[in-house]
């Protein structure tokens, strides 16, 4: 199978970076291009919880603040991989989506002419981070292109 265009789901965690390194190596070996998908989990929509005491100004300030934080984190992550790809001479593009990781990935995979999907394996228990995991069953059932899961570092 000739892989020319890889889609990488990465948001910068240790597992994702492991997948990222594997994808970069693969791109260099096969002269393939890399497309990064960064998903902002949709649980943020419900993160105001059951707050009812604050006024509209405070709620709006909180919403703007969280949005700016997430945007900054996403921008930092995209900048980081952009620089790595530039230095390595890999053709790079990206997409940022708000939603469920697996649903976003299958939707993007359907739209582009991709040959391979690469993701990191789930975070081991005890490692901190968002509880927003890739639904592997959904991916296995929905993807029409091969999926590669890269093991977590030091495993």
């Amino acid at each position: 199978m000739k892989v020319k265009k890889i889609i990488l789901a990465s948001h910068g965690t240790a597992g994702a970076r492991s997948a990222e390194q594997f994808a970069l190596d693969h791109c260099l070996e096969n002269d393939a291009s890399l497309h990064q998908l960064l998903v902002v989990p949709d649980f943020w929509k419900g993160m105001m919880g059951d707050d009812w005491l604050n006024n509209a100004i405070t709620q709006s300030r909180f919403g703007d603040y969280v949005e700016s934080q997430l945007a900054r984190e996403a921008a930092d992550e995209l900048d980081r991989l952009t620089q790595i790809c530039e230095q390595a001479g890999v053709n790079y593009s990206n997409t940022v989506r708000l939603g469920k990781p697996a649903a976003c990935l299958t939707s993007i995979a359907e739209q582009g002419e991709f040959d391979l999907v690469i993701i990191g394996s789930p975070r081991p228990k005890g490692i901190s981070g968002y509880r927003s995991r890739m639904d592997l069953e959904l991916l296995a059932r929905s993807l029409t292109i091969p999926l590669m899961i890269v093991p977590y570092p030091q495993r």
Partner: protein
Amino acid sequence: MVYTKKHPALLIMGIIFVAIAYLAESGGMSGMIDYLKAGKYAGEMVGMGYAFGAIAVLVGLWHLIGSHSEGNLDYYLSSVAGAIFILLIAMLIRWYLAPLVAVISKGLGPVMGAKYLHQVLGLNYVVLGIVAGIIIVNVFRIPVWAENGVRLSRLGLKTGVILLGTLYSLAELQSLGKLSAIMVGFFVLGSVGLVLFLGKRKNIPNSMGGVLSAGMGVCGVSATVAAAPVVQAKAVEIAYTIGTILIWGVGCMFLFPVVGHMLDLGHIQFGAWAGTGILNSAQVAGAALAYQPDGIETLKVAEIFNITRVLFLPIIVLWLAVWYVKQEGGDETQKVNVGRVVFEKFPVFVLGFILMFAMSSTGVFAPAQHYKGKYFDNNVKESKLLKDEQVAVISGEAGKLQREDRKKAINSMLENRKIMSIDDETLIRGIYNAKIFSKGANKVLKGATKAVRHTAKKIKTFRQWITLLFAFGLTGLGMQITFASMKQAGGEPLIIGGIVGTVKAVLSLIVIVLFVSESI
């Protein structure tokens, strides 16, 4: 953006409300109402069913066949669908599901003393409403046509608190205010301090310590929302904190009433404990109504504590802002805008509460000397006068009294077979509160005071509205608690939150059991 969705849901809900009203009025569901022992709600089914049914049918027709364009009319009318959706769920639970749970629970027999399972677990319309809201948002999702209106639940709760202002007497507000200021002051400052201390020990970032201390110390998610931008919390820190608080809040809402029943806490004691020990303010109201579903005495106490907590919010946010800037090595006088923080965080609805209390005190809603919405009037019917055997019971125990004023009040009551003045009534209430007489005699005294105390019509209406607004508001808030956000609980915040939450709940319970009495 056009908010109104062309959808038949609102129209259908309107027809359901009207059908309920018609069946309740015509006796079409009397068999079911009798079985559920829900006769006390029949009036509500008819009145609310027709009123809200008519609104829903009219606006629902407009949603379905009207042409909608961007603007205020579109925005406000689109929210009716979500509001009616919450109301329908809340009322179906209040009128049918909660009574059914009670019938089944009574069928199982008492489980703790004379209390049934649903009483011990607080499974009434409020708790079931919150649970239904949580199930709807997590299992079925909020329908798109209802999304806009679901947010109105916050307005419902705030309006409920404002109306609650009509039910306090000055003495009651003073006593509860003092108690809540001491309890909340001690435990808020204590929790904030403990979180910051533990945070330092565990080397968590200042931003995480700041946002967690506000959430754990003051009023849960609301405080986290207010403090996060001030201490520049990172997204993951906010997620951890809110997840931890929601899990604790929902857990405490179920746990507190059970412990309260086990310890047989009074309404004041439980309201004070819930108001101090439960992290999240929405669940304070939920637990209070779970503890006492057929009255609002516990809610009144708990809400005073909630109000005190929210009044502490601007102070704590300001403190954390100064603390954070200092910890990060900045100059606080330049960076913290004190006026803006206080102005933005001040809970305006508390002014509404105070205004309603002031109006109530002037006698707009009930005679000025009313106590808890009830006023003195001894023009009672012949049938309400003391009977011979009741006079004999009291006469037999009158010798137990030491104080002259109490003796006089009792003698005057025995002579006239009713209480003759508001002062006498206060003294007689003091006698049965002090439990000087036997149970039987106390029952007679209570009956005598009840005969001369009348609930003002407006206050009665306020009471009904308060109950409905809280049921509506809490069901709607339940629809905003997602498992995905609760699942974010983790990391150091979960450990620190667990320690501080447990210490706060246990210590406040000990203080309340030891020092707070039921007579305020």
